[in-house]
């Protein structure tokens, strides 16, 4: 580093030279800032924006240096004027440190779009623009340092150093764009590095600005009371010590930790070549790729298939010359029709997947336009099918078809709807499921032969088949009706089972009662007959007596407790009926008597 004189010699030649150089530098800086800003806008890149800020810092430095030179030259009698340069440097350092923090912290934001270039014309323009910026930066840097050294201006030398770092950041951006063209993305890293560079410049200028002020001199010239010599000496001693410590800290930070200026200047070539070497190595490194156990790699050179890679480590010429397409050939893929599986679903599962489950949320979501199909008997059915396939021709699958999976899905959907169109609903739901699956496998195998998508059909499953949700209650009602039918029949059987034993019992009772009656009847008859015969034997012997006896016994019994009316002879004879008193009937007493008499 050059020794910096604290008191620049004021001369009109120096002033003119510095002002002219400043105007040139300002022009160049404005151009660089605008160019980089424009490039950052068309590419939308944060890296170019950070680089624009870096150049903006350069512009600010140049502007402030110009101001300080003018102030220093025109207002040299003002006490403050000679410190203007230091004050300006201090302000610039603050702006740069703040800007560097912004750039560095923005690198860690999650939004990645600002850190990836879109290939195409903007990238080419940015590439050319940055090349020009590099050239301008390096020439301006040399120019500024030379002018600064010639006219012994600390500000100009610092500015030159800053512009030199501007060249490095621009070169970094150039490399990043170059790699970006080959799909190697280091934008984030490079933005971070540019941020560090801005910070480094900020710190360096800050330290130099602080050292620019000579504190003991300031104190002696601005204090109203004159200080004693002893006091002045002690202050000077303390300040020198402080300066030494501060210089050490400053040199440690700027010379050792962050890319020391001397080292950069000494090893320019090495730096450039090592960067180039690193880039080339990285670029070639992108040609290595890994094929996983379930994959096959289709190796391309200038778009043409040159090789098929089994699992393992392989190499192709880096992009854009070579490329590889990895195809999952060993994985059994599945195509779903009527529904889609949400593999990331982690919520609760229902107790059972019932027919009326709408599948609006959860592990499976319905694809109603595929699920509802017309059956042969003009009914509608809700079905879910799965087709398993494996890729057998990766070139056909990945390179000759735009979206093989979707083509297979469409073919599958077509086959399902075609096959279901000749089954009747009831058979489809129950008996013919296996038949339908077999037919679908056969047809799908034929379909992938006609449409070359490079796969082989392994299996087809009917995962679900049920009537549409709208008619499910009626289907359930049929099952209920079947149960109801059985219930009615069981009840009738119960009635029969109740009735028949009772009837048999009653019949038995009747018969037994009739037997009882018969026995009773015969026995009574027997008894009565025997009694008659016994009576008859003695009746005949004493006929008249017995006759009287029996007659009177009977009369006694018959007349006992009865109302007996005896009518006088001359009374008109009438018999009153007990029920109808108005009807009177004459009875001839003789007849009556006779009947009694007998």
């Amino acid at each position, binding site marked *: 580093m050059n020794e910096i004189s604290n008191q620049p010699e004021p001369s009109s030649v120096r002033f003119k030279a510095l002002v002219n150089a400043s105007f040139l530098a300002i022009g160049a800086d404005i151009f660089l800032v605008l160019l980089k800003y424009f490039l950052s806008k068309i590419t939308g890149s944060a890296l170019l924006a950070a680089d624009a800020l870096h150049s903006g810092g350069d512009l600010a430095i140049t502007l402030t240096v110009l101001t300080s030179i003018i102030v220093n030259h025109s207002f040299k009698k003002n006490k403050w004027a000679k410190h203007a340069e230091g004050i300006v440097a201090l302000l610039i350092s603050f702006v740069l440190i703040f800007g560097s923090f912004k750039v560095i912290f923005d690198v860690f934001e999650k939004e990645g779009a600002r850190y990836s270039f879109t290939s195409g014309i903007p990238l080419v323009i940015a590439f050319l623009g940055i090349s020009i910026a590099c050239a301008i930066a390096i020439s301006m840097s040399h120019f500024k340092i030379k002018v600064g050294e010639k006219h012994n201006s600390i500000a100009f030398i610092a500015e030159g150093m800053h512009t030199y770092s501007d060249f490095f950041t621009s070169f970094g951006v150039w490399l990043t764009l170059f790699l970006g063209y080959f799909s190697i993305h280091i934008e984030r890293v490079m933005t971070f590095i540019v941020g560090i560079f801005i910070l480094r410049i900020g710190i360096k200028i800050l330290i130099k600005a602080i050292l620019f002020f000579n504190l003991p001199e300031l104190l002696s010239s601005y204090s109203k009371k004159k200080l004693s010599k002893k006091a002045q000496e002690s202050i000077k001693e303390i300040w020198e010590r402080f300066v030494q410590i501060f210089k050490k800290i400053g040199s440690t930070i700027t010379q050792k930790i962050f890319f020391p200026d001397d080292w950069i200047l000494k090893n320019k070539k090495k730096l450039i070549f090592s960067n180039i070497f690193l880039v080339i190595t990285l670029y070639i490194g992108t040609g290595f790729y890994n094929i996983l156990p379930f994959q096959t790699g289709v190796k391309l050179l200038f778009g043409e298939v040159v090789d098929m890679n089994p699992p393992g480590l392989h190499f192709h010429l880096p992009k854009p010359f070579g490329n590889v397409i990895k195809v999952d050939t060993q994985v059994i893929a599945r195509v779903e029709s009527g529904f889609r599986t949400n593999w990331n679903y982690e919520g609760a599962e229902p107790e059972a997947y019932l027919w009326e489950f709408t599948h609006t949320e959860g592990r499976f979501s319905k694809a109603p336009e595929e699920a509802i199909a*017309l059956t042969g008997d003009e009914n*509608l059915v809700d079905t879910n099918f799965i087709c398993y396939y494996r890729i057998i021709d990766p070139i056909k699958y990945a390179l000759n078809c735009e979206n093989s999976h979707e083509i297979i899905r469409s073919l599958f959907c077509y086959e399902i709807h075609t096959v279901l*169109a000749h089954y009747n609903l009831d058979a489809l739901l129950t008996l013919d499921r296996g038949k339908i699956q077999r037919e679908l496998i056969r047809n799908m195998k034929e379909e992938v032969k006609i449409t070359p998508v490079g796969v082989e059909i392994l299996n087809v499953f009917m995962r679900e088949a049920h009537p549409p949700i709208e008619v499910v209650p009626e289907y359930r009602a049929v099952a209920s009706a079947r149960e109801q039918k059985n219930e009615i029949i069981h009840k009738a059987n119960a009635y*029969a089972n109740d009735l028949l034993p009772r009837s048999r019992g009653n019949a038995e009772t009747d018969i037994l009662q009739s037997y009882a009656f018969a026995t009773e009847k015969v026995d009574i008859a027997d008894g009565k007959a025997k009694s008659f*015969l016994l009576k008859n034997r003695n009746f005949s012997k004493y006929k008249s007596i017995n006759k009287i006896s029996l007659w009177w016994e009977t009369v006694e019994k018959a007349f006992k407790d009865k109302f007996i009316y005896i009518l006088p002879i001359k009374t008109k004879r009438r018999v009153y009926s007990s029920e109808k008193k108005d009807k009177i009937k004459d009875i001839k007493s003789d007849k009556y008597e006779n009947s009694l008499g007998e």
Partner: protein
Amino acid sequence: MKKKHIYLMVFILVVILFYILCTTVVYQGRMSILMSFGKPVKVITNPGIYLKFPYPFNSVEKIDARLNMLQPSPSEFLTADKKNLILESAVCYRISDPVLFIKTVRNKKGLEMRITDLLASHTGLLLGVKELSDIINIDPNKIKFRDMNAELTKLIRIDGKDLGIYVSQVFIKRVMLPYENTLAVYKRMRAERDRIAKKYIAEGEEQALRIKAEADKESRTIIAKAKSKASIIKGKAEAEAMRIYGDSYKKNIGFYRYLRTLQAYEKMFGEKTMIVLDEKSAILKALFSGNKNEKK
């Protein structure tokens, strides 16, 4: 920087620019049309790297020649028997003549428009002469749906030739009913299920009635048989009783008649019977003249 390095850098830049500007790479499954001021000069169909003049002398139009699928929106059609159907079709094709393709339809969007028109027209034509039973039928032999798809493929393929594409397959992937008809089908399905449910219940009741009637019949038969048997038993017993009575009473009919009469008196006069006797009645006479007779 030494001159040597500057030359090297310039050389590298030139090489890169040459690669970018003067070559074109055709990938597997793609085609390129090399154009000179908008006029097609060469069609590159094989993959590889090709030389060209830089823009604007030569420009390259890259064409995706992979097997592609177009799925126009579903449309509604009418069958010969006036049934409305919504058909969703898919067309598998690949670009075979890129120049013709560019000339006629410009891009995929233009192709989609043309194919949609063609599909609608041909499908309407083919479906208009078919009945619903040709598309869905329980008898697979009566279905002409696959033939229809094949015919559609043939027609679209012929038209596709004029657009620079080869149509490998056209298929109607879904046959659906319009919303209102779907509702009607649901209604019919419900009615059908209702019919089946009612049939089940009626069958149950039929069987139940039969079971009950049979039980009743059997029950009454059992009882009738029992009654008949009981009557016979009773009749036999009564006959036997009659015989016994006859055998004994016939020995003195007069006595029997006398006894039976007396029994009849006993039974005939109940508790509330009022007896009116004439002064001259035999009973009174007998009662009051019993002693006289003895004296006689």
